[in-house]
Each structure stands twice: as C-alpha cells, then as structure tokens.
C-alpha cells in the first residue's frame, strides 16, 4: 500500500500566494504541495492522503466550497482551512457548516497560519487513527464464519454458552470451540473486549 506522509496541500490560483505560503510551511519542516486549481489537486490527490488542505475561497472554475463538496463526495477526509480576501460572516458560516476547520482572512500572519495548520494535522491524524481501528474491526468481524457470527452476537449480549447452545440447537462443546475461534480471530481477551470491537465495526445491539 502506497503511503503518503501527512502533507499540507495549498490550492490557490495566485502563484505568489501559493509560493510564499509554501515557503513558510516548508520552513517548519512540514511536507507541502501546491496546486493552481481545484481540478489540479483532485487529479493528483490520492484518496488515502492525510494532513490538511489550505484552499482559496475565491477561485475561477471550481471555487473553495465546490472543492470541499467534491472532497466529501470522494470520501477524502482532509481537514480544510479556507483562505478569503474579505471574510464576511455568511460565507464563513456556510463553509464551517460544511466542515471547514478554520477560516483565515488574507493577509495571514505566520503564527496564526502555522498554529491552524498544526491543529488541522493533529485532527487529521486522529481521524486517520480512528479510521484505521474501524477498518481493523470491520476486517476482524468479516473474518468470522456465519455460525461464529451468530455465536458472537449472542455472546456479546451476555448469554452463557449453555443458553447459546440451546438457542442455536448445537452442543455445548461446539459453542466452546466457536468461541475459542472467535477470540483467536478478533484478538479479543474477553467478551467485553469482543463487544468493543463489534461496536467499533459499526454493529449495533
């Protein structure tokens, strides 16, 4: 699997702004890439990318809000920081509602930009970690056989092996074998642990 390190993506149609902001971020030893349009970024950006995006709100063709919507559609969970010439309240409210992490007014101070970028990257890391454990849990649950899945469902609801055997019409011994396999496949130490993994995978009671 291709791994891209967490990167700051700058999308602005103005060369000087891309260039100066990229220099600033690079001075902090944070990987940075700049794109001159929303389309150029979409073409280059892998779905697995992490870090954050600094997007100019006002761009020709596809503007900041449209790019934000397109990223959401493509399941790219990149925290977004908008840059605007004149940050009026209605546009910023709209952007924040759509999930932007922050809204910066040009010209922007280094200190402010860096702190917002660092916060966004931590947010991204957290999202990515959660994402990883979710994917892991889904994988574990998916590895169970049909019968093992049924046993697990009853086990995490607190039924004893005897009750599970009776409900499923199988022997007590068979339930014990299934349970041992389930614990092995999911890496869970006890039933509570198993319930946590099942919950994380998106399973509801």
């Amino acid at each position: 699997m291709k791994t891209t390190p967490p990167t700051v993506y700058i999308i602005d149609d103005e060369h000087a702004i891309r260039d100066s902001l990229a220099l600033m971020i690079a001075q902090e030893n944070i990987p940075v890439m700049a794109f001159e349009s929303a389309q150029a970024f979409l073409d280059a950006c892998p779905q697995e990318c992490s870090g954050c995006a600094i997007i100019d709100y006002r761009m020709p063709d596809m503007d900041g809000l449209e790019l934000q919507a397109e990223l959401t559609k493509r399941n790219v969970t990149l925290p977004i920081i908008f840059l605007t010439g004149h940050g009026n309240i209605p546009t910023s409210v709209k952007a924040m509602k759509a999930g932007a992490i922050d809204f910066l007014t040009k010209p922007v101070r280094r200190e402010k930009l860096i702190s917002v970028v660092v916060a966004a990257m931590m947010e991204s890391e957290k999202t990515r970690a959660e994402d990883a454990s979710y994917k892991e849990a889904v994988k574990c649950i998916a590895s169970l056989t049909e019968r093992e899945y049924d046993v697990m469902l009853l086990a995490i609801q607190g039924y004893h092996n005897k009750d599970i055997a009776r409900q499923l019409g199988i022997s007590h011994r068979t339930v014990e074998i299934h349970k041992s396999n389930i614990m092995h496949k999911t890496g869970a130490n006890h039933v509570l642990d198993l319930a946590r993994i099942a919950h994380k995978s998106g399973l509801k009671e």
Partner: protein
Amino acid sequence: MAYPLQSLSFQTLFDAVADAMLLISNTGRIVEANAAALSLLGYTAQEILDLKVETLVPSRYQAQHIKYRKKFAQNPEKRPMGTGNELSVLTKDGNELEVDIGLSPINHQEKPYTLVTFYTVTKRKSVEQALRISEESLRLAKKAAGLVAFDFDASFKVSDDNEQLLAYWGAEPNSIEQHTGKNNGSAAPVIHPEDSAIRASAIQLATDPTGSGDFNVEYRIINRTNGDLRWVSAIGRAHFKDGRATRLLGVVRDITEQKILEKKLQDQHAETETLFAKEVATQTASAIAHEINQPLTAISAYSEVALHALKQKAIDSASLKRALEGCVTQAQRAGSSLHELLSFLHKGDMIREQLNINNVVKEALMVAKSYGYSDFYPVLQLESNIKPVLGNKTQVLKILVNLLRNAVEAIREAEIASSEISITVRTNANINMAHVTVQDVGPGLNHEIAKHIFEPFFTTKAKGIGMGLAISRTLAEANGGQLWLDPDIKIGATFHFTLPFAS
C-alpha cells in the same frame, strides 16, 4: 259698439305693426313699407318706394332670388321664405341682417301683391338660444374635465377675477358656479407664496410681445378655510393688439393627484439611483481591494519567510533571496494594478467639444427637473455673448446637476419657504475663463462641514453616499477648471467652478 275699428285705416295698422313689412308688386317693386321696415333697413319712405326688391338681397343671392320670386308668382301661397336656410337682408348702409322672412300673397283689385314680413325678434331669440346651448355644453364639458376658464384683461393684475377663479378649489370644490357668481372671495384660496414668483414670471413670458404668447405654468394653491394644498396647471394664450398684450385666455386644471404620482415615481427613481450608485461604489471598491489585497498577502508572507530565514543559526540564504524577490515583484504588481484600474475608469469619458455654457446651464435645469428637483425658482444671470468653453458636455452637465441637487436638498431639509437658486455665468477676466456660480438660500455649511465637504464618502445626508462633490470637483479639474466653495458668503451655500474657453 258696432265695428268700432272700421274707421282704422290700412296705413295706420300697417305702420303700427312691430315687425318690418313690405308690400311688393308682381313686378318685384316695393309699393309699401311700414315704419318698422324703414327703421330696420335704414331707408326713408321716398327712397324705398319703387325700389326693386332685389336691392335688399345680398348681391350673391340676387340672381337666385329673381328666379324664386317668379316661381312664387306662379303658385302663390302663404309660407315662410327659404325654410331652413340662413336668410339675410341688406340695409341701405350695406349691413347684412339675419332675419326670418314670411311671405303672404294678397290680391287687390285683380292685382297680385306679396306681403313680406321680416321677423328679427324670433331670429335674435334663436341666436341667443343657440349661444346659450353652446355655453351650456362648454360649461358641462369644462365641469366634466375639471377645468375652469379664465380671462384676464390688459392689466394682468392678480385681480378679483383671479380670486373668483380660485374659489373653485375653495370650500366647495364641486361648485363650479361659485367661480362665475359674484363671490366676495374671502374664502377663496391663495397662491402658495413659493409659487407666486413662478406664476408671475410665466405671465410675463406669455405677454411678452416678442414671444409665442403661450402661457403654461404649474403652481400650488392653499385653501384658506381648511389649509388644503392643491396643485393646478394653467394653460392659456395671450392675445396681442398693436404690439401689446391685451388679454390672457385659458383654463386651469387640478393636477394634485398627478403630482402625487409623479413625486412617488421620482422618489422611487432617486432611491434606485442611490442604490445603484452604492452598488457601483461597492463593486469598484471591492475590485480595488482584491487587486491590492492579493499582492499584500504575498508580501506579508514572503516578509515573514525572510525574517524566519534570518533567525536560523545558519542563514537560509536561498529562501531569503526567493522571499525578497517575491516581495519586490508583488509590490510592483500592486502598483501597476492600480494604474491599470484608474486608467480603465477614466477611459472613454474625455471627448471635449466647444460648448455654449449658457445652454448647458439651461439643459442642467431641465435634467434636474426630470430627476424631481424642480421645487425651486431659478434666477439666471447669463452672459449672453460669452465665448464658447471647451469641455465634455456630459461631465459639465453632471457638475451643474450635482450642485443643483445639493442646493435643493439643503433647502428641502431646512424647510425654507423661499427657494431661489441663482446661477450666474460670467467671464472671469482675471484668469480668462468662464465662471459659473450656483448659490442657494439654504442653511449654508458650517466651518467644520465645509472643511470636509469635498472628501469622498463625506455626507451630511441620511441617504447620500458622499461622492457628489468629490466627483464634481474631479470632473471640473479633468476639464481644465476648478471647483470651490465660497468661504465668505453668509447666506446659503455658494459654489463656483471655472472652465477654459475654447480659443
């Protein structure tokens, strides 16, 4: 008792009849004429006897009359003559009188005669009745149209007649008759004091023998009883005799509703104009802001990059160089963006031509009026033979309309009764330029306001955007002149501007 009138002679009876009568022979000669006929036709008895009856017929009908007379002689019967036609009789001194004529055949001693009777009284009555009917229809038509006629004599004074006229809009607006009756005028409305000068000048213009004689003016009248204000429009024409106006005839109409509607439309128009001007200003400012803010953002970021590069233990000279180069390029870019923008905004406006400044002043008054700034009395002092100036007509008009508009708004705000605005055009010999002065009788400008009056976005008006005077001054300067506020005048505000002559 028996036959007491037998002794009454034909001659006595004939002369006693009030109607004019003639007795005509079968050859068409007058054989008898009664006293009434002599008096009507202006002949003596000696003169009229034996005259051909055609003598009494206007010459254009004489040939026809001979034919008709012969036809009548063949088939005489008692009847009115020429039924339905206008009949006239010719008097001795050549006047034609309109009459009705009755014809009665009489046989006396085997000879046929015709008795001719002239009915002047019935004729006059019918003429009078026709006149009455015509007057009545005119009165009804005027009533239906809400018109009141007026007829001033040679003096053209604001006379009793005028008061009578205005009484129509007095206590009883439905009674037109009131204005024709001899009302004492105590409840009659008065002309609004602000409008009497306008009305007087319109009368003066109409009665000027060198003019067209047209009278056309709108003014307000106040009902003395209840204080109601109505707008009226007077339209008329002066009549001249021997190079002097002798009468002014016309009609007056109530136009209050129309005025209210006009005012509403003008207010809406003004509001739209302001909104539009604001929108244009916002768009322009926002375009400028964007053009400047982009390079500023880059310069700010590059500078911080440079600072950061300097703070490193080993100076990062590559970043430093790139950042400083970026700063220079962006600062230059900001400058040239501004220049481009300004030259774009000034483009196309400057076609200068020779202008008669007097005509431009008159046109500005019309433009101001069409914008709804007509509630003032312009006092023009023009220099009739002033040399043509060189300028852009639209821009010079804009300066004048802006100044007029400011003056009117100042007067309105202060609710000042006398609303004169004087516009003076003269040659300023000191600088050899045309010099225009616009002076109002408003509250004027205090020292503090006067200091800022030409600054963009400075305004004393609730709805203004404060660009009028700033733009006017820029336009005056763009046309090679100047615009300033007179600092010494104590009454009202006085603005001056100059324009260069074409030569």
